[in-house]
Each structure stands twice: as C-alpha cells, then as structure tokens.
C-alpha cells in the first residue's frame, strides 16, 4: 500500500508543480479577492447609488459602439479576402492587420488632434473653403467618435478571428445553401455569420476587455466608464477597498460573460473546422470590385495610414530636437522588458498547456482558466494588488527594493498578459491529434523528451505567434508600467503617454513612431506565420 501512495504522489508531481506555479501567478488576483472579503469600502455604497449606473450605461454604450464598428470594419474585408480572388488581396490581408500596432490611447489623441480646430483638416479648409471649415467645426470629443476611434484601433482582433473562421468554413456550406435556394446575401447572414459566431465572439471578447481597460483616451474624451469609477474611488476618494470591490465585480461579470458564451457554443458543437478543407477562391464580378476595395481600404486608411502619416509628419517636424541617446535607452528598455516578459509568458504557457494536455486531472484545466483571468483586470488594479501583496510579504520574505524593481514589473506583466500568450498555444496544441503523444510514448519517449521532441517542434509556429502577440501588447502597455516601474525607468509607451497627456503630441510622436514600427514588423512576421498555417492545414 505504501508503494502505491508514494507512486500516487509521484504520478501527480506534474499536477502539484502546476498548482504551485498556478498559485504563484494567481496570487495578485487572490489578493484582490482577499481584500474584497476583508474590508468594507465606505464609498462603495455612495458610488453604487450615485454614479455606477451612469458609468455602466456609458461603458455598455461605448462597448456597443466599438463592437459594432469593429464588426463593420472587420467582417466585410475578412469575408472578401477569404473568399474572392482580386488584385491586392494578399496585401490587404497584411495591411488590415497593422492598426494593432498603434496603442488605442495614441490613436485617440492623434485623432482628436487631427480633427481639432487647430488640426490639419480644419486648417486646410479654413484657407480654401470657409463654409466647409465652418461645417467641420464641431465638437469631436464625443462618445460615438471615441467608439469609432477605438474600433479603428481594435478591429484587427475580429478581423483575424473571423478571417480564419471564414476560410475554414469553406465553400461547402455556401454551395449547400445555394442549392437550398438562398441568395448570396441571405447565405451570408443566415449561414456564414451564425457559423462564425464563436470565432467572431472570441475577437469581440478581446475588444471588450481592451475597452474596459481603457483609461487615457476615455478620460480625455470625458466619457466616464466603469474603469473611471474604479479610478475615481481609488484616486479621487482615496478608497483602495472600494476600488478593489469594483474591480472584482467587473472581473466576475467578465468571467460570467465568458463562461456563458463558451457554454452556449459547446452545446451546439461547432465542428466545421475539422470537417472541411480550405476552400477555393471565387472570381469577382467586375461591378463588385469597388465595394471590395472600398471596404478593405477604409479600415486600413483610417486605422493605420492616416494616423501613421500624421505621427510620421510630427516626428519630422521635431527631428532636430530628438535626443537620440535617450531614445536608445527607451528603446532598449521597451524591447528588453517586453521580450523577457513575452518569453516567460510563452514558457509558462507551454507548461500550463502541456500539463493540462497530458494529465487527466481536471484541476489543471481549472488552473489554466484561473490564471487567464488576469487579462480581465485593469492594469492599474493589478499594479495595486501587487503593491498590496508585496508590502505585506516583504518584511518576512523580500528585501525592500523588490517593489519598484524590474522583477515585479515583469511579474505583473505575466499575470496580466498570460492569457494573451496562452490562447495561440492552446489552439495549436488542441489541433494536435491525441495519438502524437501516444506514439511518442510508444516509441520510447519520457515526459521531457515528449515535450522537447514532439510538442515544441510541432507547435513551433504557435509559440512564435504567442511571443509576438504578447510582445506587441506589452510594447503598448501603460498602466502597469506607470505604477510599478523602477527609478529612472521609462519605456516608449510611458514616454509617449507623458507627452501626449500634457498636450505635447508632437514631442510624443517619435516614441509612438517607434512603438508602431516595431509592432508592424512583428505583426508582419506573425501574419506570415498565420498564412503558412492556414495554407498547410
């Protein structure tokens, strides 16, 4: 009997390891909940009664606008590019991806500048046609405008997911609907859209989280969202506990939405992807070409090209006053922190997914889900919870300098962005047949070799994708860095933001330009990988 019990522990060593790492990463979230039950925020009731309803309505309205516009910007081009053969198709496919490299707050500041009374558009018309200038002279700091701008920055999430889904659905279902008497348009909304719903939602979900986490742009536009409420409680009223309570409430709501959506999909068992091959492209009828180009160009031009040109132009204007030494320091800071954190995230991702896949215990699935929750928490709140965590631990465990050290910053990054890195790894591993594992074992591989010789090489592309996606996200990261960074530590993002928030858009432009350029390069690599995967499978 003794032998068996030792064996049992031995057999569970992976699960036990997983629980340890999982709880390490879950700690900050745990701290939040601990404080939630451990305290009473005085202002919670006040906020709840006076502002929260208003803030929530604003939030929902903003999310709705952003999602709706994202859908418009993303779905049509994704559909055309997945299904039709036309000149420029491949280039569009790449270009439509690029807005992801522009941080949403930069997009918002840039557009408010472009549209403002002193911006290039109105100035132009003031000289040439005062009537048009008068017509354009409007207050653009509106929630609707903000929604559109955020959509321009975020629509690529939906574009990617629906693009993949559309090309997997294939012509099969389309042919089927035709023979059942459906016209093309009817086919689109009665068959294609319902079938792509899970994929589209997964993209929308990311957008929702980003909007919830948005602070800079929202504040500038005078739109009070739920996150504003959290910050109001925390900063203006000085009620940390209330802030935590609000954050937890948000977390729970997000989690419920997520679970609900997952459930409703699993009931219907969407299995088309395994069932059909990549479809062949259709030729385009000439008269439809303008529509296709229009729908592909608009999101790219407004989501990337115009802001990019504006920022580029600003950079040229201040090119003489750039301090290159400082720029290099910022560059090194940004690149090193982002790449180290992304590497660690990928590493943790591999561990979680590999153990989840190889152990039969359901605990491991739960762990992965719990540590993925971090993405739903606003970055500043994660920063706060880490400060709480380490100040209460430090006396017994850590040296003083641990807070405000690069380690904590990276730790916080990992906690928040793990979910971003895990999801491409998971989807790749899930596509892998069960029998690879069994074959490996049968051919004499142990646990480590299984990972090294089979899982890692086969999922190589997914690992690179995971790295790139988190890297680009981290490059743009702001709130966590602001709160937790060490002395004299600036990144491209913080520097951009500091100037932008002080209404010095020009001075900020060179830093945003670097963020965008690096992001673009990475995204181009990512796109190349994605296309490769689409073609092979």
């Amino acid at each position, binding site marked *: 009997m003794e032998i068996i019990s030792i064996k049992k522990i031995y057999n569970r060593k992976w699960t036990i390891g997983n629980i340890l790492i999982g709880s390490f990463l879950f700690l900050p979230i745990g701290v939040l909940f601990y404080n939630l039950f451990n305290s009473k925020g005085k202002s919670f009731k006040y906020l709840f009664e006076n502002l929260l309803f208003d803030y929530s309505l604003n939030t929902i309205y903003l999310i709705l606008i952003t999602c709706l516009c994202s859908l418009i910007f993303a779905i049509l081009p994704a559909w055309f590019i997945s299904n039709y053969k036309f000149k420029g198709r491949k280039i569009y496919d790449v270009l439509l991806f690029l807005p992801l490299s522009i941080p949403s707050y930069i997009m918002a500041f840039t557009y408010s500048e472009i549209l403002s009374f002193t911006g290039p558009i109105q100035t132009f018309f003031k000289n040439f046609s005062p009537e048009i200038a008068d017509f354009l002279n409007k207050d653009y700091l509106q929630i609707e405008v903000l929604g559109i701008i955020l959509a321009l920055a975020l629509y690529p999430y939906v574009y990617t997911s629906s693009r993949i889904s559309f090309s997997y659905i294939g012509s099969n279902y389309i042919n089927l609907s035709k023979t059942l008497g459906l016209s093309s348009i009817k086919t689109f909304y009665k068959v294609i859209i319902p079938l792509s719903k899970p994929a589209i939602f997964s993209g929308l979900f990311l957008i929702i989280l980003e909007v919830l986490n948005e602070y800079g742009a929202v504040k500038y536009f005078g739109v009070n969202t739920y996150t504003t409420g959290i910050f109001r409680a925390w900063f203006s009223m000085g009620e940390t506990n209330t802030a935590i309570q609000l954050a937890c409430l948000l977390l729970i709501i997000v989690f419920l939405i997520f679970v609900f959506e997952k459930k409703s999909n699993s009931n219907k068992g969407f299995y088309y992807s395994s069932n059909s091959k990549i479809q062949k492209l259709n030729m385009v009828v000439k008269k439809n070409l303008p529509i296709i180009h229009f729908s592909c160009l608009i999101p790219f031009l407004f989501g990337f090209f115009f802001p990019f040109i504006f920022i580029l132009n600003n950079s040229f204007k201040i090119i003489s006053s750039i301090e290159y030494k400082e720029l290099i320091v910022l560059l090194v800071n940004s690149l090193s922190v982002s790449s180290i954190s992304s590497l660690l995230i990928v590493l943790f991702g591999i561990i979680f997914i590999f153990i989840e896949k190889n152990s039969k215990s359901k605990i491991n699935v739960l762990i992965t889900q719990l540590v993925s929750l971090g993405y739903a928490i606003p970055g500043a709140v994660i920063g706060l919870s880490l400060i709480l965590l380490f100040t209460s631990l430090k006396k017994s465990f850590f040296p003083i300098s641990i807070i405000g050290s690069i380690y904590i910053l990276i730790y916080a990054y990992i906690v928040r962005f793990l979910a971003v890195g895990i999801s491409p790894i998971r989807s790749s591993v899930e596509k892998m047949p069960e029998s690879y594992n069994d074959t490996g074992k049968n051919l004499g591989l142990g646990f480590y070799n299984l990972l090294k010789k089979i899982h890692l090489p086969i999922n190589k592309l997914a690992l690179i994708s995971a790295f790139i996606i988190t890297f680009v996200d981290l490059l743009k990261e702001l709130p966590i860095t602001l*709160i937790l960074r060490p002395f004299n530590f600036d990144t491209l993002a913080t520097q951009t933001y500091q100037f932008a928030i002080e209404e010095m858009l020009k001075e900020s432009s060179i830093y945003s330009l670097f963020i965008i350029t690096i992001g673009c390069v990475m995204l181009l690599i990512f796109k190349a990988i994605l296309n490769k995967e689409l073609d092979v499978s």
Partner: protein
Amino acid sequence: ESKNKKINEVNLYSQRHYNVDKKQYENFEKITGIKVNVVKANADELIERLKNEGADSPADLFITVDAGKLHKASQNGLLQKINSNKINIDNQLKDPNGFWVPITYRARIIVYSNERVKKADLSTYSDLANEKWKGKILVRSSSNSYNQALMASIIANDGIESASKWSKGIVENFARNPKGNDRDQVKAIASGQGDIAIVNSYYIGLLLSSKNDDEISAGKAVSVFFPNQGEDKRGSHINVSGIGLTKNSPNKKNAIKLIEYLTSVDAQKIYVNNSYEYPVNTLVEPNEIVKEWGTFKKDSLDLNLLGKFRNEAILIFDKTGWK
C-alpha cells in the same frame, strides 16, 4: 540602506514629468554631483506606494502639482518637516505646517473670447454661475484635480452650500459636456463652441509660444482675466507644484539640497521660461508672455485646505452633475 548612502543620490517620486524637470535635475547633478533618480506616476499611485512601502521606502522626496495631494501625504504621515534657512520664497505660499515647499504656482483663471465677450462683464468665479453665461462656459471634467482644487477652495471660502449652488449654476451654463484638457477649452473658444473657459494660466503661455500657427492664433483669440480682484474680493484661486520630504528619507541631506536648489533663483528662472508658471522665489520675475497679463491678487487660503475639502468637492460635482 547602507548601500543607498554610499552612492551620492536622491530618490524622487514625482508627478511632474515635463522636460523642464529633467533639465533641472541634470543641472543639479552638475552642480552638486548628486544623482537624481525619478519614478514618475500619478500622485495618488505614488502616495499608495509610499504608504505601502512604509519605513522601507527608498523615496526621499515627493513632488506633486497639487497642494491637496501634499496635504493628503502629510495627513497619511508620509512626510516630515523641512528645516532649511536657505529657502527663499513668498511667505503667502508657504505651508503653515512646514511639511512641504512650493516650487512653482499658477492661477486658475478665466479666458474669454475677444470677439464675443466684453471684459467688463467678467468679475468673479461666482459670477460665472449667472444665467447670462448660459451655454457659454467651457471647462474640463470633474475628475481633473485642478477643478477639484478650485471647488475645494470655494468650499473652504464660502461653505458647502454656496459651493453647491455655484456648481449647479456652472453646470447649467455649460457650452458642452466637460471633456478634453485645458488647451482644448481655449481651442473651443477659438472655434466658437463657447465663450468663456476656466483654465490654468500657463496653458495660455504654452499656446502662445507654440510652433503651430493655429495654436498661436487660438491663443490670441482669447484674453486672460484674473477673477476676484476687487478690493473686497479674496483674489484668484492659485495652486502650487510642491515638494515634500518623506518621513523616512534615506538621503535627507541630499533631498534638502535639491529643495534648496529648486527654489533658487537659477532654477526658478528655468521653470518660468519653460513652463510659463509663476515663480515662488520673490527674486524672480515671470516670463515675458506671462508678465503682459499683469499682476494679480492671489487667494490667501491655506493651500492644505484644498486637500481637506477634496472629498466634499467630489460629492458636490457628482450631486450637481458636473461630469
């Protein structure tokens, strides 16, 4: 701690992140050889961090752009009194309790459209609640600390009730919902969306010294008005950027040296000419652009009260619908 002493340095938690600050620190290092380390973040985040770090905090100095936050820090026991006789500043601006030292100050002023508003119609902050300004007033949102400080000063001077009334009046006179920053309010006047804005003084200086012609013309489209100037009035609302010495400062000597430097004539000149704020050192004159607006009477309120009445200010904002 011993390690910190070996290296000749001073650690700052600062809310200020202008280029001019960097210049100051570099100068300071050149003069004294003391290295200045900075963490820049929101004042409340920094206070949170100081609170949690407690005795182990590496920070020596805490810099904010709002006296209210300095008050909050000292209320939380995070600051210690500053003793130095080398600090030469305007007495009216000093912290009565001696916990912090101002390094610049500015007024929250009224700007008005040259075309549509007559200067003679303007008088006080309270007057802005008058019906005659219906649909004409521009101001940023209530989550901004400048507005919170202004409201706190009104509460401190006139009491909660009249502050509420005032707020309600202002809200009814809004030209649009509060949004954007101070510069945007000026631009909105230039573009005709409203006639009067409440802004910080130095933003006008920044606009007028801009490299963008349109910003300059926006700045020129408005004039500056200092409210509450009459004999019987209390003066325009001002606020300071200030610096506090942390309770457990590990490099106290260096920290005091930095405070002394920042209030010195040389440093004050740099502030004045780069950020268009008013100097706290009586020996220094404001920048030319700022000087043109003339001198004005400052509200003599104890600036710590701005922190004390902050929560009340927020409640009034919420109640009266100032978003």
